[in-house]
């Protein structure tokens, strides 16, 4: 599914969080949203999935979306939130089945088909061994896979990820993104992710969009956006962009010279 965002603005009272952003995500593409804290990444994601009011237009395959029709929207967009609410006593299976909600009528309950879909997703994400366990007993990596499983069970063509690796260590973060990439291939998903880790964003997304103070400052291929000059200007710090040896780039922070005088001079 192709997604076009035209002149999208989000404001909270007088504060303009997203300012006339235009984006295009081709079907099966992965767009990484990057930018410093408070740059409007999360607000942009919340606007696309209809959680906040916005001006402008979001189109799926050329059709403007009506964000008021929640159920229809949820059949098109699945969201992995930054800090998902995980009811500690709910089992993994029950939680993944919640992903079928947009396919079930208001007063209805799951059909055999819904259970099959959820079961398949649980198998695919290798959660079968925890299927009956309560969410409260899972590790961070397992919990994140359960959240991803719920989103995949929605069978929506667009997947929005808000900081999917924020709570994970470097290894589990990598695993989750690899899994998203595999699922994207298998199911032809389009992915939009907001990410703080610029190296991971560059390794997994096809294209990056750099936001700062709500404005879109750069968008394009990974190498176009991840340039030392652009990043230094908008993150306000010194960064090195180096070849990672596997055809990609890695972004490293560079410690600035200390402003303090060398030790010993204070004691005079």
């Amino acid at each position: 599914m192709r997604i076009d965002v035209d002149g999208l603005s989000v404001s909270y009272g007088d504060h303009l969080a997203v300012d006339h952003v235009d984006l295009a995500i081709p079907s099966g593409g992965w767009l990484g949203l990057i930018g410093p804290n408070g740059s409007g990444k999360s607000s942009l994601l919340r606007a696309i999935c209809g959680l906040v009011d916005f001006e402008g237009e979001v189109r799926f395959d050329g059709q403007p979306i009506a964000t008021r029709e929640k159920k229809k929207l949820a059949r098109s967009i699945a969201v992995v939130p930054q800090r998902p609410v995980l009811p500690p006593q709910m089992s993994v299976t029950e939680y993944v089945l919640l992903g079928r909600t947009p396919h079930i009528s208001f007063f209805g309950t799951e059909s055999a088909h819904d259970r099959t879909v959820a079961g398949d997703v649980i198998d695919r994400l290798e959660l079968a061994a925890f299927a009956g366990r309560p969410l409260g007993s899972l590790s961070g990596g397992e919990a994140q896979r359960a959240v991803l499983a719920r989103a995949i069970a929605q069978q929506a063509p667009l997947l929005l990820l808000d900081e999917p690796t924020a709570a994970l260590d470097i290894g589990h973060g990598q695993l989750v993104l690899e899994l998203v990439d595999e699922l994207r291939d298998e199911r032809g998903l389009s992915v939009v992710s907001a990410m703080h880790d610029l190296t991971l964003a560059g390794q997994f997304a096809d294209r990056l969009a750099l936001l700062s103070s709500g404005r879109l400052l750069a968008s394009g291929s990974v190498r176009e956006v991840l340039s030392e000059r652009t990043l230094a200007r908008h993150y306000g710090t010194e960064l090195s962009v180096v070849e990672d040896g596997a055809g990609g780039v890695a972004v490293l922070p560079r410690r600035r010279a200390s402003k303090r005088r060398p030790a010993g001079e204070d004691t005079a």
Partner: protein
Amino acid sequence: MAVRAPASGLTHAALVRDRARLSLVVLRRGWLIYVGACALLVGSATLAILIGPADLSVGTVFSELASKLFGIHTHVSSLDAGIVWQIRAPRVVLAAIVGATLAIAGASYQGVFQNPLADPYLLGVAAGAGLGATLAIVFVNDPMAWAVNPVPLCAFVGALVAVAATYILGRTGGRARTTTTLILAGVAIGSFFTSVQTFVQQKNAQTLESVYSWIFGGLVTASWQEVLLVLPYVAVCCAVLISCRRLLDVMAVGDDEADTLGVRASRVRLVVVITSTLATAAVVAVSGLVGFVGIIIPHTIRLVVGPSYRRILPLSVVVGASFLILADLVARTALAPAEVPLGVVTAFVGAPFFLLVLRQSRRSA
């Protein structure tokens, strides 16, 4: 990278088989718990019809019930028949209806507000009904002149007015209205209505006893007429709430995530609040203020069957009904021939029982 390794070399087929077996066990356990709950209901109803000031044999009771329910001809004296069918049976049925409604309404409120202490009383049902009933008792000089008994009618209206006021007051918070502002509004409205009720009651001390006996709850006047009065509300409301059981599970992930799953949380909350409030106002109108049922029954069930409302809601109906039948049995037999107010019994039995359940749950956690 242990996380992605297949679970101890199990094949896919073995996993599917294991899961099937697991769900069968869960299903069987689920089935047993419903049977147990229904047995509890039948047992407590039978016990409550058997016990009372007039000594009736088991045979007499069952013969009379069989004759009324299945039209079987029996030789029960008309006096005994009257005690069974006109005095004890409607009281047991009314207790069951009141208990079931208070329990399912409490469970539903806890689901939509994600707050373990929420129940309809919290949004002003109790205070509103109390004020309505007090006004009716104090100011209606000739209740017989009314087509329906004014006390339950005014209690019903008072309860609905109080909850509507809470909703409107909670809404003035604007877009930022959260469940917390609604609950705070409920506390404010509750205090206001209670203060007015206390004022009216103090100004009219001659009616103090009637007001108190209504407020502490009881089923002394139970008759088939009252059963028929509340049954339509309760039946429709319970059906709607049980249909919402899956949505209440979705609400457990919070309003925003429910929204991204296609569920408008505010709409579910409104449907559930209106339905539960209507049902609670209807039963409170005939029973007075019976406290604690909406909190202890759902929590006890939750500790046994887990957090899913698919099981909590239907079980609340059955267990709530049984609990109130037994509580009413205690209310009319403990100090016989005097009656202990029903609300006193539920609180007296309920509070320590609740503490026990909490202790047990902490130990098993």
